[in-house]
């Protein structure tokens, strides 16, 4: 389900404002990090509910809003991937010594793609339970929603910093 950009924005804004109202009053004293978390939480929940339960990631995000912050860089994981790839290649050629080159490259490519789909699954909320087709559709939707969220927040921040 791909909503047009503007309606999605309006939906998101509506829900976010309501969420912000709610969470502002729950805690009297908040540190800055808690505020940030509260804002992010409200934004994420608003984003997810703006999809009205049509997508898998939105339901997963609402049910489990605390997601680990992406801290690991890609460099480390790619280095690990290379090591794994090399070891597997060696093992595979040892196993089937007469294997053709095409097979080896194909298996390496499959291995790469598999690694990346694993990473993507860890990124998309609720992605571990999807098959590949669903994963790609959810990614599409999630990217558009994230863009809307970023746009709204950025405009809000710039507007508030404009004075």
């Amino acid at each position: 389900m791909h909503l047009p950009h503007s309606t999605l924005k309006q939906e998101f804004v509506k829900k976010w404002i309501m969420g912000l109202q709610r969470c502002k009053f729950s805690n009297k004293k908040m540190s800055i990090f808690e505020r940030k978390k509260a804002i992010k939480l409200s934004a994420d929940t608003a984003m997810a509910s703006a999809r009205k339960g049509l997508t898998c990631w939105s339901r997963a995000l609402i049910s489990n809003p605390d997601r680990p912050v992406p801290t690991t860089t890609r460099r480390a994981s790619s280095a690990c991937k290379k090591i794994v790839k090399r070891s597997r290649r060696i093992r595979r050629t040892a196993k089937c010594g007469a294997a053709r080159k095409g097979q080896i490259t194909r298996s390496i490519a499959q291995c790469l793609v598999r690694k990346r789909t694993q990473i993507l699954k860890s990124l998309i909320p609720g992605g571990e339970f999807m098959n590949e087709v669903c994963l790609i559709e959810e990614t599409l939707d999630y990217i558009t929603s994230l863009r809307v969220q970023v746009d709204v927040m950025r405009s809000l921040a710039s507007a508030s910093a404009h004075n």
Partner: protein
Amino acid sequence: MESNAGTTETRSNVTVPDGGEVAAFESLQFTDEIHRLISAPGTDNASSFTALLELPATQVVELLHSPESVKLIVASAPNVEDFKGSFHFPSNTGLIQKDARFSVFSGEGNNKNEKSNSPEMTSKNSSANLEKAVKSEPAETVSSLPLVSDPTMENRNIKRKDREKKVKGSTKKSKTATNERLEDAEKLPYVHVRARRGQATDSHSLAERARREKINARMKLLQELVPGCNKISGTALVLDEIINHVQSLQRQVEFLSMRLATVNPRIDFNLDSLFTPESGSTMDGGNFPSLVTPLIWPDVQVNGYRQQFQHQWHFDTLKQPIWGREEVCNNYVTLENSLLSCDSSANSATLHANQLKMEL
């Protein structure tokens, strides 16, 4: 008839038949059977069968005559042999017409499908895709054709592999894969996927290929969505870009929420200039300045932010009916504050949405 059938079968397995026997064919009722079958009413069940038989018997004979290669003969021979195979049964024509749906010939055609393809392809290119239909056919044909002798089938099996390679270079007009099983062109309720040249045709690989095509279509959409992915080829690299994009968007959300958390609550909004074009259409008369706070907030630190909230909240509930008369202030609080002052969240939401719409 059976003796002739036997001879023709053996002949087809071996070499080019000589003309004498072909002529003998014609003299038999065999060709009469063929003609009768050709002219049989074309029900949907028998459509493939009649399409099979569109090739008139004379052409079949000519093909039999042609010394070009074994494949052509065998390609055409099944048209002849299929009849013979069916003639083993007492009720040939009835069986053929009744079971054409389940492709009587597919039983034998399991072994020589590609042979039957070439004459067929000229006639029916469009409807010939039977990936999952293939599954049903062998089951039925096995049950319906128990009498087909095994040695002949085995011979055909052996020859099929050779023919598969030869047929690829065939000069026939068939454009689609000659490995396709075209015995049955029925409109079964299955997904029709065209098997391409040189690709396996068993149901598993076909289903997997359909799935891969779905995935590839969606990957193309993703490539268009993510900037800079159009020029990249290769699934792994595209996935890399997508992952980077998603991670960057998520990090942006984090940063922006942190930035919003530190925002100074004192903001100057020129709300009236934003709202006057919208006021008549979207807002109630009394709620027009609802986004305008009646108070002038002093500069406060972040810690004082929350106290303002509560203060504002209590104040606004008291001042609810007076808002219609408030004038626009120069100092505005953040949007959150101003919205909290509104009496109905729905109104505020629409107003805020409109305002942001103007901004965005």
